């Protein structure tokens, strides 16, 4: 089972980026092997629109079944749901802290977006 964390940096001690759609990177952590890879999300960061949807595509391609991030807008949430990816929100400061929370079962699966879209 792989989990994608929105990350500002390249390792688990990096700050968890509070933005899903505009996160510069995703740290995709494999719970079975305790290894991770970093997926660049620069294209979404620079996109004029549709960043959340494009980020959802990036996460789907990475093989992750869950996303742990700060906030997720309506289009991103719809796209992630469409891809069968679960969403967990947290204000944990780092990827490692968010991973601990996830592992200890303290994160609840989100049922909807938690912020409004930019066009709302």
């Amino acid at each position: 089972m792989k989990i994608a964390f929105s990350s500002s940096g390249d390792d688990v001690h990096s700050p968890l980026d509070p933005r899903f759609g505009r996160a510069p990177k995703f740290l995709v952590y494999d719970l079975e092997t305790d290894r991770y890879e970093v997926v660049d999300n620069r294209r979404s960061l620079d996109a004029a629109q549709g960043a959340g949807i494009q980020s959802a595509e990036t996460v789907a391609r990475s093989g992750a079944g869950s996303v742990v991030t700060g906030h997720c807008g309506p289009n991103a949430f719809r796209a992630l749901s469409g891809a069968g990816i679960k969403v967990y929100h947290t204000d944990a400061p780092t990827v490692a802290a968010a991973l601990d929370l996830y592992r200890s079962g303290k994160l609840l699966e989100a049922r909807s977006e938690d912020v409004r879209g930019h066009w709302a």
Partner: protein
Amino acid sequence: MILAVASGKGGTGKTTVAVNLARVVGSPILLVDCDVEEPNAHLFLEGEFGEEEVVGIPIPEVDKSLCDGCGECGRFCEYRAIVSFGEAPLVFPELCHGCGGCALVCPKRAIREVERRIGVVRTMRAGPVTLIQGVLDVGSPMAPPLIRAVKTSLRNGEPAILDAPPGTSCPVVAAVRDADSVLLVAEPTPFGLHDLALAVEMMRETGVPLGVVINRCGIGDDRVHAFCAREGIPVLLEIPDDRRIAEAYSRGRLIVDALPEYRRLFEVLAEKTLRSVREGVGE
């Protein structure tokens, strides 16, 4: 003859110039309000809106019974308005620009286009001035298709003045494209100069002849004048910084009606910019 009135910075006097210019022409003229996110030229005209036309863009609708989830549509879409995760695609209507590409690339012909409303086009007659106005629906971010719809009124070859949106982005390009000349309105301030320079840079890409109107002359400094001289752009009108102009504006009155001493300024501008209109009248 199509003259567009544009500016880099908002609130510098585009509409003021456009409506006063339209007023002094005296012969039939179209005034086309392309600032569809906040149209305001009608505030300065006396008349009632007549016909109203609903404008939409084509967005994809997917027949799930035909779709095999190949994802070609999503790979084609530049705007992430349609995306597939191995099943029938999701459509995000507010991101769609209506290009129709997804329907064209779909190998199963599972996508057909349906209309999505984005706004209306309205017409008002005020003496010789016919105002065509686009109004974008609240919550619809897609201005360029509505601007193009507003501009279909230009096809009959009548002389026209276009009131463009501010800035240098897609809606502005949609508005000024195919104009015969463009007036850029600027204030003689550091902000005014900065945004004028951006607008000039954008306009030069289009190759349309440029002139500048300096509004509120007397505030700020002479750097806008110096910029225009250096760039070889004619300053076609200088409107003084006169409190009475602002007072008339705040009451929805035209400068040329409220302050007749300024009428000549706009007549000279009309002669310089809409010469072909005058010639048309003379024939």
